[in-house]
């Protein structure tokens, strides 16, 4: 039987899928997360429904978490961070630190699944006033409200009559330095738009966009559905300023289809904030000497043909650690990383025989 465990850093969707995959293959894993709960961003940020199935995020994550918690091959360490690493895989000595002290563990390979963090709208080039206006909120704020089963105008507590989403906040921007597209915000915003229209049939919902990124089945399951069934207004043109007139916030943009500047009062504005490499990702890259690619995420070798292997032998990466990823990406790369991490250990052990 194999002795050396795989270290899985990060207990979000990718990390959970990796840990389960490793266990299914009969290998041990140590699953580490700095929070006091498993589930990663979907739980941390209180995601309401998964895109596009509309299934409860908490339910879906609970299912995944349950599968690893009952598994004897998965050693779960919450409130724990990775502080240092010595040696080369398959003989790595990793120092784990938690509130009670530190411990050095020997591991055979690593799966880094430290995910992403949400973009802070205060860094945005456009003037969105997130820190000035109560009624300007983010996708995460909206998600939290929807999870609680309601959607209100923050300043008044009343049901809003007019709500809009602004896409690409913190993404696709040379001035901020985040050149990439964050992949999921178009899907999430459209999903939330449907949820809001469902909750508040009298509320008009707008989505201000540059391009609607509707890959694969999102096209009809989300986009067409939102337009045709729920009459969500998709307006091509991004907002540059949000100011306040009296008690109402006003968004200023161009309706590029009509070719005219527009200024519209809104009860709630939802900023579709993008993804950035998380602090955890940056830390792990330093500790394990993993090179980053040009956007600041962990680099994988082999481009499209190898989505989980890093330049450092025996260190793999999964989920949004390597770039913007949706849930399907995270699950898929979690599984792929599990397979490769175990294969690496098996190969090393066969060689020593």
């Amino acid at each position, binding site marked *: 039987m194999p002795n050396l465990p795989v270290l899985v850093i990060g207990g979000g969707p990718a990390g959970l899928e990796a840990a389960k995959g490793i266990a299914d293959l009969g290998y041990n894993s140590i699953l580490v997360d700095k929070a006091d709960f498993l589930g990663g961003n979907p739980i941390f940020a209180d995601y309401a429904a998964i895109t596009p199935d509309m299934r409860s995020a908490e339910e879906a994550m609970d299912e995944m978490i349950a599968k690893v918690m009952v598994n004897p091959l998965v050693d779960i360490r919450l409130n724990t961070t990775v502080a240092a690493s010595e040696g080369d895989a398959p003989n790595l000595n990793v120092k784990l630190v938690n509130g009670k002290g530190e411990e050095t563990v020997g591991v055979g390979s690593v799966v880094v699944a430290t995910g992403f963090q949400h973009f802070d709208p205060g860094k945005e080039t456009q003037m969105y006033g997130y820190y000035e206006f109560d009624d300007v909120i983010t996708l995460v704020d909206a998600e939290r409200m929807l999870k609680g089963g309601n959607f209100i105008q923050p300043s008044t507590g009343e049901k809003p009559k007019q709500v809009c989403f602004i896409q690409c906040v913190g993404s696709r921007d*040379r001035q901020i330095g985040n050149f990439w597209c964050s992949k999921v915000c178009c899907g999430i915003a459209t999903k939330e738009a449907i949820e809001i229209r469902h909750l508040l049939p009298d509320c008009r919902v707008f989505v201000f966009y540059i391009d609607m990124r509707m890959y694969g089945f999102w096209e009809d399951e989300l986009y067409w559905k939102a337009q045709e069934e729920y009459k969500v207004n998709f307006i091509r043109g991004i907002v540059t300023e949000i100011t306040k007139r009296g008690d109402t916030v006003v968004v200023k943009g161009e309706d590029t289809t009509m070719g005219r500047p527009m200024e519209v009062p809104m009860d709630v504005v939802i900023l579709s904030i993008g993804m950035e490499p998380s602090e955890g990702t940056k830390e792990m890259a330093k500790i394990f000497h993993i090179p980053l690619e040009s956007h600041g995420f962990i680099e994988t070798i082999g481009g499209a043909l190898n989505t989980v292997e890093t330049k450092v032998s025996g260190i793999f990466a999964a989920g949004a650690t390597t770039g913007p990823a949706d849930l399907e990406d995270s699950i898929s790369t979690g599984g792929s990383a599990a397979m490769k991490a175990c294969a690496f250990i098996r190969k090393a052990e066969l060689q020593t025989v």
Partner: protein
Amino acid sequence: MSIYKDAKYQDVPYEKKQKLFQEVKEDMRWESVMYGCYECGICVAACPSARFYDFSPRVFAQVMGREDIDTFYELLNDSVWDCSQCFSCTRCPRQNNPGAIITIMREVAVNHGLSSAKKALQAYSRIIYKIMSTGTQVAPDMLQPDFFPDWGPDVKDVSENLDVWRRAVPPETMHTTELAWDVSEKTRLELYMIWKLTGNLEMIENIDEGIFMILEEVMEELLEEHGYDIDDFENVLED
């Protein structure tokens, strides 16, 4: 051939349009003002001219990005002079600068003496004369009711009391009615040298020959007074 059936200036040879386009692209500033455009409309949203004129900085960025020579020529002759050069469009997430693209396009139009440029600058040439010959513009004696009838009765008051009211301004350098402030002769001399050394004087000839001639005379005179020959100053911007 333009992709549009109703394109204007179809009678102007394509090579001529292309040459002008090339000149815009070869400007030193081009690389830092034009990247690519994904038509987000932020520039139009922020633009004051877009609300008043049939003008769109987004159209400029798109056309220049597409390298659509025919439409470029249309813009060069029609709406390029509507821009108010406020640079609100620099909010562009691709880091394009439509205002600066327009500055460069206007320079090319001026350098080639396009009649649309001449027309746009017709009423403006005496301002050019003032700034180039004295180093400052907006003189107190410009505040005449027939030049600014819409600015209000204070203009009339100023013009009627100009001499005294001007002497009633404490800073010594501002005791003049012909200039904003008193510019020294030495400084004007240096300014004239700069105009010659950068080919700026010759640019004026393209849009207003009359102003150019007067300007050249004034410059020549001052340079001569100080022992310089105006022809000794070659354009250092030309390789």
